[in-house]
């Protein structure tokens, strides 16, 4: 067998590396690596919605917050154990994400962006002012993660829990996009009208994309709660949205590997800039603009030139569908009359 190094091998190696971090790194690095895992989840969810399905929504930071608050409040207010509260928080984010964005599903472009931004502002306001439930702007403390009887402390516990959950969510997203669902998303992104006339139900698949991104953001929020030990509204503001957005733009819109790379790179950058707090916004904003202008499809476009890095939207045995001989337009032109009809460049065709 040929030794290949492509996107799958890259992801496997990255997760192996992340698995051994607790043994080689100090607690600070461990915390940053944990943060990177959560942002991988966030970027994946956002990329499914924005990069694949093409829905430019700005509510992901709010969904992240709802997941975190849902989990924390279920623990503190209702006394649920973390392992029950976390799925509850994630599902809450998914449900609210789907329900609240339902009116937005009929909008597109700037209208969708604005309405979801309004929702994000509204949820920020609720977190700040619904004091009797959310403890307001001051936030609240959540209990340490208790995984007993497993012999693992809270820091390592949340790290390995995040590692497993992230790996599973990467694999699920990877599989999902390589199917008729992924193709339906991309079809809606690339041409709503053509998608519709192929029988793709726009509302249904947009709702699915919103639900998925809400779920992913909710899961990240549920893992964020015990990692921080403390929750307040400020972590889920507009800057949070810009961070996530810049991750998928830098990594690569419409790419699973890109989401992973973008999240990792940007978390590292965020931490490097931590000492110069006021520069974070400026640097992130500049990077976002630079990538949008000069490399709108992100870092993965460089990697895609290497063999094994393409990310198909289908999963069948490619070896069964290969034409012998060079697949150049000229070769095809010689082969069949019809292909010849079509093979000439459009500019060569007279009207």
């Amino acid at each position, binding site marked *: 067998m040929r030794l290949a190094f492509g996107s799958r091998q890259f992801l496997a190696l990255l997760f192996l590396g992340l698995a051994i971090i607790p043994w080689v790194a100090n607690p600070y690095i461990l915390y940053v690596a944990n943060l990177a895992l959560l942002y991988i989840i966030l970027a994946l969810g956002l990329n499914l919605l924005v990069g694949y399905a093409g829905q430019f929504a700005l509510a992901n930071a709010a969904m992240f917050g709802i997941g975190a608050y849902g989990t924390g409040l279920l623990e503190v207010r209702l006394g649920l154990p973390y392992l029950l509260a976390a799925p509850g928080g994630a599902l809450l984010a998914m449900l609210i994400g789907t329900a609240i964005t339902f009116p937005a599903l009929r909008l597109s472009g700037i209208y969708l962006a604005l309405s979801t931004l309004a929702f994000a502002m509204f949820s920020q306001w609720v977190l700040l002012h619904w004091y009797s439930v959310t403890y307001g702007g001051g936030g609240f403390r959540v209990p340490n993660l208790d995984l007993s009887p497993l012999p693992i402390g809270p820091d390592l516990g949340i790290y390995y829990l995040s590692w497993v959950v992230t790996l599973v969510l990467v694999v699920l997203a990877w599989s999902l996009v390589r199917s008729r669902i992924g193709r339906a998303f991309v079809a809606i992104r690339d041409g709503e009208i053509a*998608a*519709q006339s*192929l029988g793709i139900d726009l509302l249904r698949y947009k709702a699915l994309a919103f639900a998925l991104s809400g779920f992913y953001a909710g899961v990240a929020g549920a893992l964020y709660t015990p990692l921080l030990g403390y929750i307040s509204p400020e972590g889920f503001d507009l800057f949070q949205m810009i961070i996530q957005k810049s991750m998928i733009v830098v990594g690569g819109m419409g790419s699973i590997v890109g989401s992973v790379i973008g999240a990792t790179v940007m978390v590292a950058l965020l931490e490097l800039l931590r000492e110069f707090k006021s520069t974070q916004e400026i640097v992130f904003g500049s990077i976002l603009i630079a990538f949008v202008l000069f490399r709108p499809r992100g870092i993965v476009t460089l990697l895609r030139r290497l063999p094994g890095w393409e990310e198909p939207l289908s999963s069948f045995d490619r070896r069964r569908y290969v*034409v012998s001989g060079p697949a150049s337009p000229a070769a095809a032109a010689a082969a069949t009359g019809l292909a010849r009809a079509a093979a*000439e*460049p459009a500019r060569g065709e007279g009207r």
Partner: protein
Amino acid sequence: MKMLSVRDLSVAFGGVLALSEVSFDVAEGEIVGIIGPNGAGKTTLLNTISGLSRASQGEIHFAGTRITGRRPTEIAALGLGRTFQMSQLFPGMTVLENVMTGLHLRTRASALAAAFRTRGMRAEEEEAAGKAWQALAYVGMERFAHRPGTELSFGQQRIVEIARTLVSEPKLVLLDEPAVGLSVTRVAELDGLLRRIRDERGVTFVMIEHVVRLVMDVCDRVVVLNYGMKIEDGRPEEVSANGQVIEAYLGSGFDAARRSS
């Protein structure tokens, strides 16, 4: 059997009447051309049949089912295919994936089945790839299967678009100017392809076309629209001899204008 029946169809956008009481029938296996000057309402007609525009009045029946006011997805599910004036291949997919997307309604896998790659989902995916490959081979485009759709020329994209509708085994396909941008000899080959699909697969076609050669050669019947109204409906040679049609295209002052210039 009537494949398509349009009765007294009117479509208004705001106060503008794009189509006014248009009626015509299409029999199974027919190839019907829709012609008319720019702004005559041809694309609106196709959009209304495929459910993208809403009829203000009148009825459309497709294969015995009333489809007026139904959603595009439902109409597609009944077996109506469509291609567009501007190529609508999805640039983010390979050619084969584009054609596989044409099988959306013929495949079942849910999001969960896809995420967990169930055995059924994988079998369905292989089958879809096989069917898409066959459809591409049928139109002679399988060599481009694994290339991005954007790498193809204008004409090639149109052929792939036809394969994408063909793969779902539609009963009726609406083509919006399939020959635009093709040279005369290429048009003749498109002509052959459409006939072959009709003869071998029993597909009925309704096509908007400006290329007179294609209309005359391939269409069994031609419907002429002008200012949203049907002004003629008949065999191509009848239509081309009709004074009203010539007037619609060239204007009533055509002779005078030619003499004075």
